[in-house]
């Protein structure tokens, strides 16, 4: 069992002589915050308690699209126990017609409109008002007493229908932006971006094989178990404190400052433990409400927690989409032409991840002739938020399904085809940039050589599918502070939110750098005043960017201690050598702990580092899935799943495996079970965790996580972002496996039992669910 848990590692970059020998990096220590998490002591946002706390509740629109004629809060305000009631009138406004705002001001206008509806409600669940009261029961009663006069308007829910000329217009001020050029008339297409190179039309004419398919995918949610929550205190001196479960305290501070039109320095964001996020806890929802309610209540702290129905209705799921992909290849199996159209629904306000999707869907491959058109479209659904490699799993589903069909027509093995076309160092990516050292080929080889792929799959209604994927990864700004303590321990204050175990990984980097035991490093998450600006934990950036910051802060501590020891020993600092945790100069030697005891007594040693890495290496993965389809029920069983991914360097090996396994599980949900279902009036019908069905332990096998390490040459430890890409190839791998099992391809997500039965030819025809 123990051996089976170990992931296979393929290191193809450096020979043994050059490979650094890490003592701590790459191992599997127990995380320091683990004790509190297995004993129930850890304090999450939802667990926040304060003396004198008031409880908040939000009034939400029952309509998908309506004009607000009036809001009457009198009866709510009069209810005993109610201390505050707020509407959009309590938010700062931007002067002028929204139609004539510049891009930045329009974005702020949209932010405020999502916190509290201004003149229109744009989705079922859109916040209209909020109250604070002495108990949750009183707050719920008060919300029921707020009277809103709506003029109900026809909703538009489908991305393709929303693009039509005759569709109802959601935002009268929205014009289609085409790289700075705006359309004349308002419509629901917020933007259109085209990427193009070469002559795809000519290349298609010359291609030996051309496959052209359309796909539809449903809206899905990140599905974190801890609902959104915020506790806010607006003190009488104007200083604001917000305790929240968030991916980024500094980013959210900026958002709140903008929304409330106040300097960010007046706002302190305190990071609570986070019960899952995956991109959905970047945007603020409740934080500004908590602050406003606190001020109005007479400066009392106010706590808001969403119900799970509110989470599904009114936070930020990811886009439903229409995607068309056309690929042409020559007889030798090289992709010579590609075309894609992606239309993503952004929900009610612009900003879907369609450009992310457009940027990834063909990016594992060298293609010289292509055209990709990306449309960002508003519909009467909640404004989309980021979800683990935003916009990518659905785009990859479309592209890799078409690739699979091309392989089939050419009679080529799917791994061999991908090896033939895979980008490598020096190749030009779809976005035009030149590829650095990356590990796609290594992941393909890892799958090809794996016992899973080497073992034939036999049996009726059983099939195997392969998919590869690319994800950008993000650099971003990171800050850390480290203080050497007299006992030789080091307190490491981290700016990055810890969603899944990054604080132990970062502590490992510092311990390795300083040559001390991991237990001597104490990682803590700082509030927004205690540590410098750190971009949110997202974009697969924390091990990479904060890891770089921690490595550099370790170097800085060593330098400072060496300088002090030089003073102490009477030698130039340059003569003090530090190796394997020992400072030495001539005959003098001190361990790190001894040196700490000596020099911190003279003056404390503290170092702070901020970084903003400009060169970011992308992630690549290749997955293989075996499935069995039950022809009577349409149920798909995942028999076996292997995920190979290049992570550059795994800091905490179990953490990296866990990211891969968790991403696969979410991808399985996206592929087979999950999807928003709306009524014709635009009400979300499945806003609970029974009907929005996420994978359980019974739906998955063990997930073999093959950690491939092709060290990133642009990082001192070789780290490459790893957290998001694991979800990207999953729906495609499963779709290709289902095709292998049934002989027909499904072009819609989720590939539900009803759709499977239809593909087999035994069920009723299904439509894409409105969602």
């Amino acid at each position, binding site marked *: 069992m123990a051996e089976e848990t170990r992931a296979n590692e393929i290191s193809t970059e450096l020979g043994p002589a050059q490979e650094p020998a890490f003592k701590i990096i790459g191992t599997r220590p127990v995380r320091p915050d683990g004790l509190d998490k297995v004993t129930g002591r850890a304090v999450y946002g939802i667990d926040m308690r304060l003396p004198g706390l008031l409880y908040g509740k939000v009034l939400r629109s029952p309509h998908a699209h309506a004009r607000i004629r009036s809001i009457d809060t009198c009866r709510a305000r009069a209810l005993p126990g109610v201390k505050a009631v707020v509407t959009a009138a309590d938010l700062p406004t931007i002067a002028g017609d929204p139609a004539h705002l510049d891009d930045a001001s329009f974005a702020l206008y949209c932010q405020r409109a999502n916190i509290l509806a201004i003149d229109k409600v744009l989705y079922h669940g859109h916040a209209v008002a909020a109250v604070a009261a002495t108990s949750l029961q009183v707050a719920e009663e008060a919300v029921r007493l707020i009277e809103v006069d709506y003029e109900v308007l026809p909703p538009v829910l489908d991305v393709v229908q929303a693009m039509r000329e005759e569709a109802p217009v959601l935002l009268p001020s929205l014009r289609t932006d085409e790289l700075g050029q705006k359309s004349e008339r308002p419509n629901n297409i917020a933007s259109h971006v085209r990427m193009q190179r070469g002559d795809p039309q000519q290349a298609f004419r010359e291609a030996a094989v051309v496959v052209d398919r359309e796909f539809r995918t449903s809206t899905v949610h990140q599905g974190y178990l801890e609902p959104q929550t915020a506790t806010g205190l607006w003190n009488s001196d104007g200083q604001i404190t917000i305790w929240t479960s968030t991916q980024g305290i500094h980013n959210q501070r900026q958002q709140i400052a903008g929304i409330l039109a106040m300097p960010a320095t007046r706002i302190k964001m305190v990071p609570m433990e986070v*019960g899952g996020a995956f991109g959905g806890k970047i945007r603020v929802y409740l934080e500004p409400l908590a602050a406003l309610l606190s001020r109005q209540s007479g400066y009392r702290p106010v706590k808001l927690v969403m119900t799970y129905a509110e989470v599904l209705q009114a936070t930020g799921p990811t886009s439903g989409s229409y995607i068309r992909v056309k690929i042409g290849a020559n007889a030798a199996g090289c992709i010579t032409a590609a075309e894609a159209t992606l239309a993503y629904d952004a929900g009610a306000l612009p900003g879907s991840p369609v450009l992310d999707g457009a940027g990834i869907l063909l990016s594992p491959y060298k293609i010289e002739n292509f055209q990709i058109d990306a449309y960002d479209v508003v519909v009467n659904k909640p404004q989309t938020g980021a979800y683990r490699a935003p916009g990518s799993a659905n785009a990859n589903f479309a592209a890799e399904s078409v690739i699979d069909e091309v392989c089939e027509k050419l009679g080529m093995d799917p791994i061999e085809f991908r090896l033939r076309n895979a980008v490598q160092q020096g190749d030009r990516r779809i976005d035009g940039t030149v590829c650095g050292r990356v590990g796609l080929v290594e992941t393909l080889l890892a799958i090809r050589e794996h016992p899973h792929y080497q073992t034939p799959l036999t049996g009726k209604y059983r099939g195997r599918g392969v998919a590869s994927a690319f994800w950008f990864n993000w650099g971003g700004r990171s800050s850390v502070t480290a203080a050497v303590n007299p006992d030789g321990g080091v307190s490491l204050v981290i700016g990055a939110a810890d969603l899944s175990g990054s604080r132990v990984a970062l502590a490992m980097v510092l311990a390795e750098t300083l040559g001390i035991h991991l237990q001597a490093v104490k990682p803590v998450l700082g509030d927004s005043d205690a540590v410098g600006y750190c971009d949110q934990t997202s974009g697969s950036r924390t091990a990479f960017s904060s890891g770089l910051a921690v490595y550099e802060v370790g170097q800085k501590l060593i330098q400072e201690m060496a300088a002090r020891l030089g003073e102490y020993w009477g030698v130039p600092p340059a003569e003090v050598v530090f190796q394997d945790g020992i400072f030495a100069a001539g005959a003098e030697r001190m361990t790190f702990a001894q040196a700490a005891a000596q020099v911190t007594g003279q003056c404390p040693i503290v170092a702070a580092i901020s970084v903003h890495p400009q060169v970011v290496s992308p992630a690549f993965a290749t997955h293989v899935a075996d499935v069995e389809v039950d022809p009577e029920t349409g149920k798909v069983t995942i028999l076996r799943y292997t995920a190979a991914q290049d992570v550059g360097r795994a800091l905490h090996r179990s953490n990296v495996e866990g990211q891969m396994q968790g991403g696969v599980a979410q991808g399985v949900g996206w592929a087979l079970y999950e999807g928003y279902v709306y009524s014709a009036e635009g009400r979300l019908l499945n806003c609970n965790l029974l009907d929005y069905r996420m994978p359980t332990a019974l739906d998955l096998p063990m997930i073999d996580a093959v950690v491939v390490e092709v060290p990133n040459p642009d990082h001192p430890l070789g780290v490459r972002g790893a957290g998001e890409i694991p979800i990207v190839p999953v729906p495609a791998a499963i779709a290709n496996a289902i095709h292998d099992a049934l002989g027909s391809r499904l072009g819609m997500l989720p590939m539900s039992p009803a759709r499977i039965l239809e593909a087999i030819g035994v069920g009723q025809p299904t439509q894409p669910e409105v969602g």
Partner: protein
Amino acid sequence: MCDETILVHAQINGEEVAFACRPAQTLLDVLRGELGLTGVKEACGNGNCGACNVIMNGVLVNSCLVLGAEAEGCTITTIEGIGGPEGLHPLQQKFLEHAALQCGICTPGVLVAAKALLDYNPHPSEQQVRRWLAGNLCRCTGYDKIVRAVLDAADTIALSVAPVAEVSSNG
């Protein structure tokens, strides 16, 4: 709105407890509110995720589906009652070693459920573990390391209670 309060006596994590609650209040609400046992979590609120699992009179329940008043005379175990001053329960220890948690929000519920499983069936197979834990949603881990940790904990517990003769015959 009913303001009536009910006085309830129960044994929670080995201690006799008395609390007052409203008729409509759930056991989950009472545990997290009146009793300050915030280890048990509210996520879905309607019995579909297992984050609020507690053991009540030996039976695994979703405390969001139990009324506070129903706890009268009952013996209840929450995550706070698993492990103790003598140390972590083997399940907790194995969860840490296997990194069977990421964000940790489902972990209390999963641990309570896993304890209920091992109390009922000390030697579960992988499938039995998966079936038993199907009521506990985890969005982070994909369940792989959770299942391995539970199986490893079962082995550890079995070894620690095995008679001396049996252990020495295994070498």
